[in-house]
């Protein structure tokens, strides 16, 4: 059952990213990425991380992608992108992809033998995660709140500039 879920979720995830590469419309691209992130949430749940799975689906597939869809709606490019005529870019990006993939496989090869079993007990219940978040990782947690406020102010200031220029 776990194998079936894993392969189904990973195949849907990879196929939706591949479709994102080949489909031209940006709104469809964003929806494909929503599908991929929802599948990744399912994979996180398979890996004993229910809290991270819910956060992935609510924040990534929900909030961030809604932001993307809103920006796509505001930009509203109806004119067609000119077809990519540069074959060289395609070939070079495929080459860099293959090289990067082989490099990743070599770099994690040691983990294939050593850690192939994995622990069996459940680790990821939200209670222990919250306890660790408010004891060992308290300072990063607080600094993250400052980062969020800075990003919010920055986004508002950046997006507001046009009105000032107009007046």
């Amino acid at each position: 059952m776990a194998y079936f879920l894993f392969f189904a979720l990973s195949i849907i995830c990879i196929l939706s990213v591949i479709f994102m590469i080949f489909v031209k419309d940006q709104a469809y691209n964003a929806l494909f990425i929503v599908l991929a992130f929802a599948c990744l949430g399912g994979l996180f749940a398979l890996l004993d991380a229910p809290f991270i799975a819910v956060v992935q689906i609510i924040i990534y597939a929900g909030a961030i992608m809604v932001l993307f869809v809103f920006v796509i709606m505001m930009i509203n490019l109806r004119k067609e992108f000119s077809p990519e005529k540069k074959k060289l870019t395609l070939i070079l990006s495929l080459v860099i992809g293959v090289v990067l993939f082989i490099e990743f496989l070599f770099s994690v090869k040691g983990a294939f033998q050593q850690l192939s079993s994995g622990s069996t007990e459940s680790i990821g219940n939200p209670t222990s995660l919250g306890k660790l978040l408010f004891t060992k990782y308290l300072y990063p947690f607080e600094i993250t709140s400052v980062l969020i406020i800075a990003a919010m102010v920055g986004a508002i200031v950046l997006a507001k500039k046009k009105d000032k220029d107009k007046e």
Partner: protein
Amino acid sequence: MIPLSYYLVLSALLFVLGTIAFFIKKDLITQFLAIEVMLSAGNLVFIAFAKAMGTIDGQIIVFFIITVAAAEAAVGLAIILLVYRKKKSIRSEDMNIMKG
């Protein structure tokens, strides 16, 4: 029990697909989406190793990564909107002011 190596290969594949999408696509929004795919591939590795080592610290790192990604998406999309208002285009080939 799914072995760890399956997750590592899946994550490597996702990261590579994100890289290829970043280089092939020409508009800023889709390139930004490709960067999000790469971030998620990194998250998958963190959670897979957290499961394999039996510790929960990896999940907390992923929690922070998702928070930072939300902040990054807000600022990045604001910058893309600003670029579109200035140049009426979001093609990355048009951003060539600093070309030497």
